[in-house]
Structure formats: structure tokens, C-alpha cells
């Protein structure tokens, strides 16, 4: 941000910390707790024509700790996970809006009240752990991000927190909701977890030289969530969603001698005969399409691939491999139709790609070789 831009922001009176970049120029948390404010007045006057000066006493008070924090989920959509996945991560951010350096205690809850988030929670993540991002890269680095509480976060500072856990293998699991609770705690001892702050009771008498604790945090998760106003805590919620299910995919292969150059019917597998191979891919899981289905086959030894013989289409009947077939280009480029095919001459591999195989359907691919 240019100096001119920063000056404009200051003049308009609204300061957004994020765009200025560093917190030193103008703090949103205010004077640091423990700062002593002093005031002394002085005067000049004359008495009977003679000049004199005077000074007042020094009035002072100590600035108290105004406790506030912001806890948010940093994701715009649920974390997509696979069944059986371990180390699945949801990411949060804790901002210290207190006018002093504080520790933050972290805990998680998997029992989330209905209505806080959309969707229905039907599983818990196992082995739940909470870690603080130690290298500020916003990504959970196992073995590197190992701290379980936020240590010495300065006023206006931000820390990234991860909830990490394992996804069960049961196919019934589809969504898990988790809540992160951050509690403001005492700072001052690096590496040591501070005690949770307690608000100084309002009826305590003159505390002029001590730092009182005043909770000024709003309830940031609404009526349904766990948080309440001015309790020195903040909550945010994250979601895991099982996005990938496996489908029952199978392939069968048949071979038919098409012609042998000699017989008129019932051709035999003679040298020079043409053999057709038929690969049938079946997605037996109803309602769940499989995408990017790749069929590959290495042509047998002692045969030569018949160029341009790859075809992909619907299942055939009465001995035919397929119906409504689309001929494919040997070089893998897109031919007419939705499928692609290719033949790799160096490793003698035929490949047929079916972009989407709908649930409960089958697609066949065929190619021909000549017996050497």
C-alpha cells in the first residue's frame, strides 16, 4: 500500500488492519494494558507585577486489560475427505483483539447444536487433535505444527489453528461438524500455557495500580452456538464432508477370430488371422457415475496391432462386441464421439478412455490384432 493510500485511509477515519499490513502504525486494540496514563498541568501568572509559575499534582491511572478475540473458520466450503482417510484437516483463525499479549487455550467439541451449520452431522472424526500453525504457511505440516495452544499472541496478532482427525470407513458416513473453542489466557511466559483469564468483579474497590480484566467480547456464533457474550471465549465451526465414494467397477475381456484368410466360416487362429479383443467395463453401483475410466491392454506377443481398429461404444449382442461404436484415433486425439483411444507403439498398449460411466451401465471397447 502506498503512503498516499495509507494517509487517505487514516484521514477517512476507518482503518482496516488487513490492508495496512502491519499492526504498528495504528492499533485497533488500543493502549497496551498496564500503561500508566499521567496528567500534569502548569501555569504562569503575575502577583503584584512579579511573574511566577506553578505546577499541579500528577494524576495517574493504569490502563486495564480489555479482553476480546475473533475466531473464524477460514474455509469457504467443507473439507472434502475420503472414507478411511487419516489426518483430515479443518482450518481456523484466531485474532487477538485484546490490548495486550495473550495465550489462547484451545479445545474442540464434536457435538454441534442443530442449525448452527447446514447439513446433518452423522459421524465423528477419530483421534481428534488441535495444532497451531508454527510456520505461518496456512497449511498443516505434520511434525512441524505441534503446539496445542497459542503462545504469546500480540495485540492484533493472528494465529492459524488446525483440527486434525481420521475419517471412518463406514460407507454411511457423510458429514462431520466440529467446533473450535478459543479461551483468552494470561500471556507473559513464552513456551508456558497461561491460565484462562477471569474478569475482575465490577464491585472491586479502587484498583488504581493493578490491571483489571474486563471481558469485552461479543457472542460471535449467534443464538444456537455455544458462545455467550463477554465470557473471554470465541467459537467457530468447521465441516468435513465425505466426497468420494468407491464404485463397483469391473472389466471383462473376450477374444474372437474375425477372419483367417482361408476359411469362409469358423475362422481359425492361423498366422495372418485377424483377432478381435472386446473389453467390457461395467459400473455396477447404481446412481454413482464413475469418471475418467481408463481401459488399457497390452497386445499379445506374436501379434501386430491393426491400425485404426480401436472402437468404443455400447454393449453389443449376438457375437458383436459393441453397437453404436465410435472409431478412435491411434494418436489419442479426440475423434467423433465422447470417447478417446490411442495405441502406443513402443510399449504395445491400447488405451480407451470413457469420460463418464453412469451407474448401472456398461461400455465396450474393441481393437484388432493380426497373428504374426
Amino acid at each position: 500500500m502506498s503512503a498516499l493510500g495509507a494517509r487517505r485511509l487514516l484521514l477517512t477515519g476507518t482503518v482496516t488492519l488487513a490492508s495496512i499490513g502491519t499492526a504498528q502504525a495504528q492499533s485497533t486494540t488500543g493502549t497496551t494494558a498496564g500503561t500508566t496514563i499521567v496528567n500534569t498541568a502548569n501555569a504562569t501568572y503575575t502577583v503584584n507585577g512579579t511573574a511566577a509559575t506553578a505546577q499541579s499534582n500528577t494524576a495517574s491511572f493504569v490502563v486495564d486489560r480489555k479482553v476480546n478475540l475473533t475466531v473464524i473458520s477460514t474455509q469457504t466450503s467443507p473439507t472434502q475427505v475420503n472414507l478411511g482417510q487419516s489426518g483430515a484437516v479443518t482450518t481456523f483463525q484466531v485474532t487477538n483483539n485484546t490490548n495486550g499479549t495473550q495465550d489462547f487455550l484451545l479445545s474442540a467439541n464434536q457435538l454441534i447444536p442443530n442449525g448452527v451449520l447446514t447439513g446433518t452431522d452423522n459421524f465423528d472424526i477419530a483421534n481428534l487433535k488441535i495444532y497451531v500453525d508454527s510456520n505461518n504457511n496456512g497449511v498443516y505440516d505434520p511434525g512441524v505444527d505441534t503446539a496445542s495452544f497459542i503462545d504469546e499472541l500480540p495485540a492484533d496478532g493472528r494465529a492459524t489453528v488446525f483440527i486434525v482427525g481420521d475419517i471412518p470407513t463406514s460407507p454411511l458416513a457423510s458429514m462431520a461438524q466440529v467446533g473450535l473453542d478459543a479461551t483468552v489466557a494470561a500471556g507473559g511466559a513464552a513456551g508456558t500455557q497461561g491460565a484462562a483469564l477471569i474478569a475482575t468483579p465490577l464491585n472491586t474497590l479502587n484498583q488504581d495500580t493493578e490491571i483489571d480484566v474486563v471481558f469485552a467480547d461479543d457472542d460471535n456464533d449467534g443464538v444456537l452456538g455455544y458462545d455467550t457474550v463477554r465470557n473471554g471465549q470465541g467459537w467457530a465451526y468447521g465441516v468435513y464432508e465425505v466426497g468420494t465414494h468407491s464404485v463397483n467397477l469391473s472389466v471383462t475381456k473376450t477374444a474372437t477370430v474375425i477372419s483367417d484368410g482361408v476359411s469362409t466360416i469358423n475362422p481359425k487362429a492361423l498366422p495372418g488371422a485377424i483377432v478381435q479383443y472386446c473389453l467390457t467395463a461395467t459400473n455396477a453401483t447404481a446412481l454413482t457415475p464413475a469418471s475418467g475410466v481408463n481401459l488399457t491392454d497390452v497386445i499379445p506377443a506374436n501379434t501386430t496391432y491393426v491400425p485404426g481398429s480401436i472402437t468404443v461404444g455400447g454393449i453389443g449382442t449376438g457375437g458383436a462386441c459393441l453397437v453404436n461404436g465410435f472409431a478412435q484415433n491411434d494418436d489419442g486425439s479426440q475423434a467423433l464421439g465422447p470417447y478417446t483411444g490411442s495405441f502406443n507403439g513402443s510399449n504395445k498398449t491400447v488405451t480407451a478412455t470413457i469420460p463418464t460411466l453412469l451407474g448401472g451401465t456398461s461400455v465396450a471397447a474393441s481393437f484388432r490384432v493380426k497373428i504374426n
Partner: protein
Amino acid sequence: MTLRFLAAVAAVATAASAAAAGPLTMTTRMMIEKRVTAADGSTATQLVPANKAVPGDRITVVLAYRNTGTAPIGSLVLANPVPRNVLYRGSAAGSQTPELSIDGKTFGTLAELRVTTPQGATRAATASDVTHVRWRLSSPVAAGQGGELAFQAVLK
């Protein structure tokens, strides 16, 4: 503390103006605006001594002066530098309006003061630019007489 204070003032003032023993006594105090909820649910604003103060609290700085001598005090000018971490906000109700300064040297109203920006241009001063406030009393203060002056501020 009083003894040290006397010695410091004597070092800069002439013998005739040993300030602590002089005819002008000044007492300053800082008060915080506190919102009090009455029994009927209405909220009122009270001024309480500044014991529990957090950033954003509104402060009233009060200066009481009295002529404890026998001769009238003339040309009285009372000055109050705005404390660090405090921002000037305006004169307090019931008090003489102070003159303001952004550098401690030139005093006037906000409209008369100009601030030089880092780029070298000037702009009109705002309340947050004020560094000193000053009251010049137009008439002498008779023996035994006194008064109270105040201004409003906010804790950064």
C-alpha cells in the same frame, strides 16, 4: 515526592516563585464516563474516578485552581499538555473553552491550526492532532477565589 518536586521547580524558577508555596494551587484529576443503569432501566452517564479504564473510554480531565495568597493573581494562563495515549475530544460542558495547539507553541481554534503532512502539504487540524490545551483567564483571580476547568478526551 513533594520535596523532589520542590527542588526541581526551584532549579528553573526564580526565588520569588517557589511554586509549591506560591499563592496558586492547582489540583488535577482524571474522571471516566461510566454508564449507570438506574432501577427503572434507564441509563445515565456518571463521572467516576479513573480506576478501571480500558481503551475507548471517555475521560474528562479536570483542573481546579485557587488563589491561596492575599494578593490578586493576574495574567493567569493554565496549560495542560494532552497525556500520552489520550486524544483530545472537546471542551467540557460548564468549562471555559480552551485554546488548542498542535505543537505546544501556537495556540488557537481547530479551524485556525494547520498540520503539515509528511508529503509537505498542509491540512486543517482535527481534535486528534491537539497536543496542548490552554486557558487564559481574562480577569484576575482575587484572594481566596478559584475555579475549575475541564476538557474531554478519549483513551486510545
